[in-house]
């Protein structure tokens, strides 16, 4: 089920909210939210729920086993089991497809049956997110940072809670657990605040992000026809599209959770204000970047084993982070590009090369935006066309006025106005509350032409 769908907005959400506050017992409320989350997830395909149940079972049992014996073997088994589910559904087609193509080229024999089977594998939405949550839980228990959860209901809630289920934020159990221990009575101010944040997120998605998408897709659907102006505008436009799209989802998730009295970690904080790629990753998809830091980069050795090893670790972490986004080589290239940006920043800092903030922000903006080419375009040919156009090889072309206006407005807005989740919506008076009500109406009215969330694919 999608947040920007009518069945969610007008059936699922009202029913769940009313039922939640109608039930007095805390545990019964948890049961309700877990059941509702499974319905939410199974709405697309019923067997998705079975998969999530299997992942939950593995994570819960692994945690209990790790509590009894803090064994590396148990940890490896738990993490491998969780990754096996992810690998089977997300990466089997990628690995198998590339292998069969390779063998096909070498032997001049194709494997159409196997190819067809692999291409037929459906990616269960959200599997990357809840797999990472399960892994972080197992590792935290193994490290002794967290007690294993004995209550399967609370663990099931942690994995399945529908606001963060499909596209994050990636929640850690240590953050959520204390909130599950107490009952959250109805608080009109809190519910209103949650709804306001949700409404702002919905409008940000259906009006702003999808507004960008219409123009960006017009250009990037045929990269071979691009010229310099159009290529840059389209790629920068995509940078804003994906930011508004994903941060909108995060705002909606935070708002929804807030309605039920649950606080989720924030994910975005105006990333295009960053004055370096390092800062960018402290503002962009923060729950993923901190996850990669804590569960991949640091275990690999981080920066403790010398400069060369740090650079290798950075590239490995970011490459794998890229691969997490999708089973496609372009995501790996994008991740490696980000890794190169990070290690370049480290080297520049070591040489004490620092630019004025405005220049640093502008430079970061340009290099980050350029990186979206590898994220948005999937084939080498398309990427080649776009990059060639950006470097003036296809001429300047026509100036894309509409898209440029949108970009200028987006830059002005994001540079001046703080991230929506930081707004003190609780203190909004009647006028501002009514204005957000109107924004909600506009957001709902724009659902008809809305595109799916970009991060649902991951």
């Amino acid at each position, binding site marked *: 089920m999608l947040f920007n769908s*009518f*069945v969610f907005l*007008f059936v699922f959400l009202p029913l769940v909210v009313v039922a939640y506050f109608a039930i007095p017992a805390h545990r019964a409320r948890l049961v309700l939210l877990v059941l509702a989350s499974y319905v939410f997830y199974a709405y697309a395909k019923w067997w998705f729920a079975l998969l999530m149940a299997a992942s939950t079972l593995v994570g819960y049992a692994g945690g209990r086993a790790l509590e009894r014996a803090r064994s590396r073997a148990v940890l490896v088994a738990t993490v491998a089991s969780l990754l096996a589910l992810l690998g089977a559904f997300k990466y089997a087609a990628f690995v198998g497809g590339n292998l069969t193509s390779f063998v096909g080229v070498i032997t001049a024999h194709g494997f159409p049956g196997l190819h067809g089977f692999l291409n037929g594998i459906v990616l269960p939405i959200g599997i990357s997110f809840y797999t990472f949550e399960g892994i972080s839980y197992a590792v935290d228990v193994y490290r002794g940072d967290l007690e294993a959860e004995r209550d399967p209901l609370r663990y099931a809630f942690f994995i399945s809670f529908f606001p963060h289920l499909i596209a994050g934020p990636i929640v850690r159990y240590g953050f959520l657990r204390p909130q599950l221990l107490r009952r959250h009575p109805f608080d*009109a101010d809190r*519910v*209103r605040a949650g*709804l*306001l944040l949700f*409404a702002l997120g919905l409008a940000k998605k259906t009006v702003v992000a999808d507004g960008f998408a219409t123009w960006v897709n017009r250009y990037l659907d045929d990269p071979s026809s691009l010229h310099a102006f159009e290529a840059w505008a389209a790629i920068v436009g995509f940078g804003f599209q994906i930011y508004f799209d994903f941060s909108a989802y995060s705002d909606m998730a935070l708002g929804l959770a807030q309605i039920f009295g649950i606080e989720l970690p924030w994910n975005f904080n105006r990333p295009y204000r960053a004055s370096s790629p390092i800062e960018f990753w402290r503002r962009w998809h923060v729950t993923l970047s901190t996850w990669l830091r804590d569960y991949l980069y640091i275990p690999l050795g981080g920066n403790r084993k010398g400069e060369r090893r740090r650079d290798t670790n950075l590239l490995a972490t970011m490459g794998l982070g890229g691969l997490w986004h999708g089973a496609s080589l372009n995501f790996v290239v994008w991740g490696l590009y980000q890794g190169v940006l990070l290690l370049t920043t480290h080297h520049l800092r070591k040489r004490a090369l620092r630019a004025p903030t405005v220049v640093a922000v502008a430079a970061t903006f340009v290099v980050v935006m350029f990186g979206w080419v590898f994220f948005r375009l999937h084939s080498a040919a398309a990427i080649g066309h776009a990059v060639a156009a950006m470097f003036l090889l296809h001429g300047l072309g026509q100036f894309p006025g509409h898209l440029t206006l949108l970009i200028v407005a987006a830059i002005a807005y994001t540079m001046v106005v703080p991230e929506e989740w930081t707004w003190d919506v609780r203190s*909004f*008076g*009647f006028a501002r*509350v*009514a204005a*957000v*009500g*109107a924004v*909600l*109406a*506009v957001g*709902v*009215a*724009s*659902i*008809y*032409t809305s595109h799916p969330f970009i991060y649902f694919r991951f």
Partner: protein
Amino acid sequence: MARLVVFLGTALVLLAALATLNWWVDPFGEFWKPSAVQEARAARPQCLVSHELIGGEYLPFKLDVFRSRPTRTFVTGSSRVLKMGSWPGEGTFANLGMPVISPEIVLKELRALPARPETLYLGVEAFWLNPHFRGFDVSPGLERRARYVLSRSAFDESARIVRRAPYVLLHRWRKERVGSSCVVGRSRPALAWRLDGSRVWSFELDPDTYHPAIDPFTTDLRKLRTGIYDDWTELSPARVRTLERVLALARARGWRVVGFTPPDGERYLRFFAASPVIGPRWRAFGRLMPKLFGRYGYRWLDFRDARSIPCPQTDFVDGGYHTDAACSMRMRRRLDAAARRQLTLVALGDSIPAARPRECHCRAGFVALFARALRRPVVVRNLAVPGANSAEVLKLLRKRGGVHADMALVMVGHNDTPWIRPDGSLRRNLAAILDLIHARDVRVANFYDDGRGDPGVVAEYARAICEVARSHGARCADVYHAFTPKLLAPDHVHPNAAGQRLIARLLYTLPSARRK
């Protein structure tokens, strides 16, 4: 709490206002407006209905067209059959075609029609058999309707319409003149519908208005005709099955069917024949269709090459996809002629006309032999029920509300004899049966003596059957006197193969009978 109410209240009031405006103006025609069609129908002379009011509600509109007329002949198919209309003064023709139709929609449409006797011209498109082709959603659900009335794009269009025609806020449509025609619509009919379901472009009413754009020819299958041929790797078995269900339904209802495929422009034909993707499928389609229709006793006319109709290339209004009215009516003339050649034959009676192979030890019973002897396309409906007496045949007919066909064969009475099931009402029942048969040519056969009962009674029954038949304007084949014991099957009840041939010959050699 008050601010929560203000927040939700503001959103709900705005959404309610939006939904009301979009529902009232209905800019993309997502709601069926029967009163607009009624208004057009009530006008003298009748008006056309603008496409603005029909929009995507093709199915209810077309079913309304069918039901509102004494329809005897109708065509269905894609947008390429929509120019096929009534002949001047003809009130019994309906065009039930619709854009982006698929075999599934055709089946749904035909199932919704009453089972009265009809002649159907079924326009089959080759691209229907591309598994990737998807038809139009003719039954939008509640969620789609909610999304529509609450959509900003519908609002933008509603606002545009209201700016152009402010009266829409009070009256959802009005009668307008386009050229010399009356159109029920609201200011800008690019397309309009006649009340027989055929389509009119506005340039045909007023040359200064909308003319369909030239279909951009491309060899890129993703773009050619919006991608309907793209990724076409096989003739979809599921779609072929659906077409078979369509034909089986038509046969079960006793309809006369002529299948055809609308023509394509010359350069499309050349491309389809040469394309490595489409070519094999295109040729397989051409081979499959006559067989498929023939299996059900129906004719197939291959109009893919416009010269076969004949239509010149200038008859395509958009460069090779849609034909104009002149060419479409030439197609109709060919279809009418083919339909006239096609007969429908219904058979009623007991196990003798049912002719089960294990009883008669024959491959074809007299009904099939009779149909074959006609040497014309015949759709046979054999409604004979083994073991049935005249009362049961009558009951069956009453349940069906009678039968309609070009010809009817009746052989009943053997199971009415006193030594099988004494009834004594054969005369009355047979008379009632003949009253319920609506056919130009009705032929009745009496039955033979199989030697099991009283020969006098059999003779009396045989005589009575022919008397009743003649008194009802039907011809009677005297099987009783022509039949010999050698013609009995090993069970000594049913006729053997030679017996079946004899009955067929006796029925066939009768002069054609009454007209009803």
